[in-house]
């Protein structure tokens, strides 16, 4: 089992370009999350999904869009990249219910020039 797989792992963009980060999971988890991690800021939630076809805003949603068309995939889109979106992005999944354990991907490092 691969667990949680993020693609791409590295990407350099120019300001104004668009791109999509893909998160794929094979654990059949209902909940999926996108976080960004910046130095000294910890993990901040961008968007999340509690099931196929549903999405919701997290703490820092501006400049990002998401889609959950299939249960196993959660896409994070940047329509017009800005230097402030330079970060490491992590996808995570969890089972519904009382367990809080998140299973994280390895991260995607995005640089916007």
């Amino acid at each position, binding site marked *: 089992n691969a667990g*949680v797989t993020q693609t791409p792992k590295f990407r350099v963009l120019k300001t104004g370009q668009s791109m999509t980060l893909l998160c794929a999971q094979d654990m059949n988890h209902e909940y999926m*999350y996108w*976080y960004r991690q910046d130095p*000294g*800021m*910890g*993990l*901040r*939630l961008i968007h*999340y999904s509690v099931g196929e076809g549903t999405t919701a805003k*997290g*703490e820092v949603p501006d400049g990002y869009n998401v889609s959950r068309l299939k249960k196993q995939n959660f896409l994070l889109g940047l329509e017009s990249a800005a230097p402030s979106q330079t970060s490491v992005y*992590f996808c*995570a999944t969890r089972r519904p219910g*009382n*367990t*809080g*354990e*998140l*299973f*994280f*991907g*390895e*991260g995607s490092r995005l640089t916007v020039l």
Partner: protein
Amino acid sequence: GESVGLHLPTLSVQEGDNSIINCAYSNSASDYFIWYKQESGKGPQFIIDIRSNMDKRQGQRVTVLLNKTVKHLSLQIAATQPGDSAVYFCAEDDYKLSFGAGTTVTVRA
């Protein structure tokens, strides 16, 4: 909004000593807390969790203590090893999970 925060951004500990990492939270209604470990270049990994109806929970070499009176929790690592060098996060489970900024633990040989 409510938040969690770690007391110290860095902690240096001698190999073999015990480590204590502290975390404060502000939402008195929080019911569930989790500790994660993040090694360099990797995603965070679950270490241990605790519910608000407990004040202590033990795992393998790790213990989490919860003090609801002062809204504080701590992670204790026994006999710290080089492999324990990482960033440690406490998280407050408000369904979406809110993470603190993390404490970087460095183990000295």
